[in-house]
């Protein structure tokens, strides 16, 4: 009867815990949302950077023309004259999401502009992401860890960096999709129900819609399956979790136009198929083992092995053949650069040229995941006692993501959730142990005797009771010096309790063993809280200062502490929109393509979707050619205006001159007459008087520094910190038509072809002969009649 009573208490506590957990989650969601609003507060509600502008434009199109037109959208305003099949080359997830949001809101008569919706999509989804994290971690290590992980993820800087209000990019929703897919996978794995498997496939579909990073999932899960099989942890739940996912997932992925047949053709996906086959073999084996007597099974094994191995070899051989035959060895450049970090910089300059494809530096780790970096190992250890399928999965996840993040800065984003989960686990475990031992110490004297007779029920229950009473006091105390952490700690304790109570006696005995002295544990708790506090501070700082600048508007502190705003980009785009013909073509380096089409509504030659290397190389070549050649290239592309970004006057470092070497490399990759060494003076890139003539005559140099010397007498470049090499020169084929207030954007117009072609005679000649002509005037007129 006591048992029933305790059970009653337990359910009460259970309900209480759930409600609390729910509210905490709510708070976490609010936190995750609001911490990303700094950019809106500090600047304005505006789309950030480059790609978001494209997504924004696409979303507008979607909301205006509906989904089918979007699907079949052939955009003739970019990549002139090739055009771009937007519907077929874009990951529609983000757009569809925002579009749906907008549609829902409007049908609820909440009139929000498309832009607003786009701006706030990312924060919203980061809230979802943190909840997804909660569920995932809950599946792995119980709700305590879940809450901790959710809280951590809500404000992890590296995620903030991609999901502040206004950075309307695929990652914003992709991360949520990623975590949620993992959650469903684990869920399926734990329950083994087809229901979750279905939803797993669907959320995988959403992931595929959202981000190219889906290949991470479709490789990670098979790895995990393989791991389980190898470690002999095969179970029919594993089969149910995996096999339907592959079939449904592949089909659904193939539905996304941008992926299409790649879902079965490119080798990013082959791993999953291989594992699919393997798991069937394994399943068969287990089945037969199940229905056969051991002796017979041995025979079967011998037979199967002798046959099966041959089959496997054949399959593998076929796979390899397919891989070899498929283009780029079946691996798209980005994924190859994942496996071989130096691949991109070696072979694909266009990928290497993007800063976020560079390997990260150590500081960036600390910047992006801060203290989590230290907690992760602890988390991993925690995962190993005891090792479940789920925990093994997260371990695998963290390991792989660490590797990938080491390859590309951008994949820090994948690492962040893993890190959060791990740290969440670590924290909760730590608090668990510490508080556990504290509690143990506190009521140690009362129940010393009971310790002696470990194992029987009654003291167990009493201790349980006392547990139930004690913490409530300490909870009051905890409440005062609050901080969610402490609350969470409480909850964790209780959750832990139930788990423990439900679970067998064994771990309980384990807990008995790992008892720490009171002071140590208190200090430990205190330190942990300190750590958490530090993390929070850092995150807030990162969100407020580091990551909320919308790179379309720049600010700088003036000497007198005031804020100086550089709004040159929008100035320039506005100029284009108002002063040029609708069908005029604007050429610029591809970084500014999206913005030009979205903000200036003008046709561009290349843009940030770098799908056609040759075309970009053409522009690169033009930029690095001398004026005449460049003019011919541009003219052949019907270009009317050329736009260059120049930071030399205000010291804006990421301008075209700094990107110029990439233009040279990319151009040279396709047009061999452009040679990088011609632009480098003994190996170093310089624009001062030491620069090579090729450099000084290149179009980019001229367009950037045209009339620059007029600003200050000597043409001092504030980015390169040097005086420019060639100061006074004229443009023969281009006319400067607009230069923004801070010279950050300069727009030039191509001159029309010469109306007349001049003769060969030199002008200088006339000077000399003018003397003789003056003599001639002295002569007498010729008789016109003769």
């Amino acid at each position, binding site marked *: 009867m006591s048992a029933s009573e305790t059970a009653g208490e337990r359910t009460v506590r259970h309900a209480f815990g759930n409600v609390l957990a729910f509210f905490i989650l709510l708070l976490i969601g609010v936190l995750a949302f609001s911490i990303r609003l700094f950019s809106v507060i500090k600047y304005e509600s505006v789309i950030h950077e480059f790609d978001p502008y494209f997504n924004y434009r696409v979303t507008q199109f979607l909301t205006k023309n509906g989904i089918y037109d979007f699907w079949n959208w052939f955009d003739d305003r970019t990549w002139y004259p090739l055009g771009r099949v937007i519907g077929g080359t874009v990951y529609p997830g983000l757009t569809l999401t925002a579009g749906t949001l907008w549609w829902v809101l409007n049908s609820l008569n909440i009139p929000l502009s498309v832009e607003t919706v786009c701006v706030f999509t990312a924060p919203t989804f980061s809230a979802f992401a943190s909840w997804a994290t909660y569920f995932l971690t809950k599946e792995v290590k119980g709700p305590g860890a879940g809450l901790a992980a959710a809280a951590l993820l809500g404000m992890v800087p590296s995620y903030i960096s991609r999901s502040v209000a206004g950075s309307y990019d695929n990652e914003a929703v992709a991360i949520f999709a990623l975590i949620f897919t993992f959650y469903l996978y684990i869920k399926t794995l734990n329950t*083994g129900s087809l229901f979750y*498997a*279905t939803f797993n496939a669907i959320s995988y579909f959403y992931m595929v819609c959202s981000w190219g990073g889906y290949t991470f999932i479709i490789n990670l899960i098979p790895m995990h399956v393989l791991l389980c099989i190898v470690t002999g942890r095969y179970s029919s739940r594993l089969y149910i979790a995996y096999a339907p996912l592959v079939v*449904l997932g592949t089909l659904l992925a193939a539905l996304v136009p941008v992926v299409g047949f790649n879902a079965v053709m490119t080798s990013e996906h082959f791993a999953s198929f291989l594992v699919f086959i393997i798991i069937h073999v394994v399943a068969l084996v287990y089945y037969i083992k199940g229905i*056969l*007597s051991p002796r017979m099974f041995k025979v*079967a094994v*011998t*037979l199967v092995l002798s046959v099966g191995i041959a089959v496997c070899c054949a399959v593998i051989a076929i796979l390899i053949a397919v891989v070899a035959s498929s283009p780029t060895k079946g691996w798209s450049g980005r994924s190859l650069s994942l496996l071989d970090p130096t691949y991109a910089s070696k072979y694909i300059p266009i990928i290497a040229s993007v800063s976020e494809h560079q390997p990260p530096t150590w500081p960036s780790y600390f910047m992006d995941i801060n203290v989590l970096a230290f907690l992760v190992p602890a988390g991993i250890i925690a995962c190993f006692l005891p090792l479940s399928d789920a925990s093994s999965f997260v371990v695998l996840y963290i390991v792989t993501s660490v590797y990938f993040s080491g390859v590309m800065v951008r994949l820090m984003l994948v690492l962040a959730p893993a890190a959060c989960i791990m740290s969440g686990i670590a924290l909760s475990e730590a608090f668990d142990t510490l508080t556990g031992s504290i509690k143990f110490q506190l009521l140690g004297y009362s129940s010393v005797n009971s310790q002696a007779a470990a194992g029987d029920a009654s003291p167990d229950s009493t201790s349980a009771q006392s547990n139930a009473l004690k913490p409530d006091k300490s909870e009051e105390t905890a409440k005062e010096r609050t901080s969610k952490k402490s609350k969470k700690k409480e909850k964790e304790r209780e959750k832990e309790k139930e788990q423990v109570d439900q679970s067998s006696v064994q771990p309980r005995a384990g807990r008995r063993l790992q008892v720490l002295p009171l002071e140590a544990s208190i200090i430990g708790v205190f330190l942990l809280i300190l750590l958490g506090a530090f993390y929070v501070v850092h995150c807030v700082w990162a969100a407020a200062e580091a990551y909320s600048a919308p790179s379309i508007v720049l600010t700088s502190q003036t000497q007198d502490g005031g804020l100086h705003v550089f709004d040159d980009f929008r100035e320039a785009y506005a100029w284009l929109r108002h002063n040029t013909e609708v069908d005029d073509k604007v050429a610029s380096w591809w970084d500014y393509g999206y913005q030009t089409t979205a903000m200036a509504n003008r046709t561009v030659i290349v843009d940030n979707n770098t799908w056609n290397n040759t075309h970009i190389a053409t522009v690169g070549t033009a930029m690095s050619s001398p004026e005449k050649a460049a003019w011919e290239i541009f003219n052949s592309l019907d270009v009317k205006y050329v736009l260059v970004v120049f930071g030399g006057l205000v010291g804006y470092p990421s301008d075209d001159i700094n990107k110029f070497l990439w233009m040279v490399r990319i151009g040279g990759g396709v047009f061999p007459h452009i040679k990088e060494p011609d632009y480098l003076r003994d190996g170093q890139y310089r624009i001062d008087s030491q620069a090579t003539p090729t450099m000084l005559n290149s179009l980019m140099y001229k367009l950037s520094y045209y009339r620059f010397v007029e600003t200050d007498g000597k043409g001092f470049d504030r980015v390169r910190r040097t005086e420019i090499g060639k100061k006074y020169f004229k443009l023969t084929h281009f006319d400067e038509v607009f230069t923004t207030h801070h010279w950050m954007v300069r727009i030039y117009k191509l001159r029309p072809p010469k109306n007349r072609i001049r003769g060969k005679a030199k002008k200088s000649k006339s000077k000399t002969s003018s003397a003789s002509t003056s003599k001639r005037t002295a002569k007498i007129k010729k008789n016109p009649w003769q």
Partner: protein
Amino acid sequence: MARSTGEDAQALFHSLRSAYAATPKNLKIIDLYVAFAVFTALIQVAYMAMVGSFPFNSFLSGILSCTGTAVLAVCLRIQVNKENKEFKDLPPERAYADFVLCNLVLHLVIMNFLG
């Protein structure tokens, strides 16, 4: 030696058949269903091998519909299998419901992709 393996095979098959005979009928139905799917798939593969994979999307959907059906059926079999201890707390009706749902989704996708 060869003979011995032969005999072993004989024995093996014999025992297999006997073991399989023991399986309940509903599982047998499922097995039949699976076989049906697998054969259909094989025929299509043969066809593809002959004429080449021109309407590739149709080919994919054809194959995958069979594979999917088979896989789902296997899942169902696993779940409704009495011997299987893992799922004793999962009622077969529930499993069946999931199975239906999953199939419906599968076929929707197939139809969409069939072209």
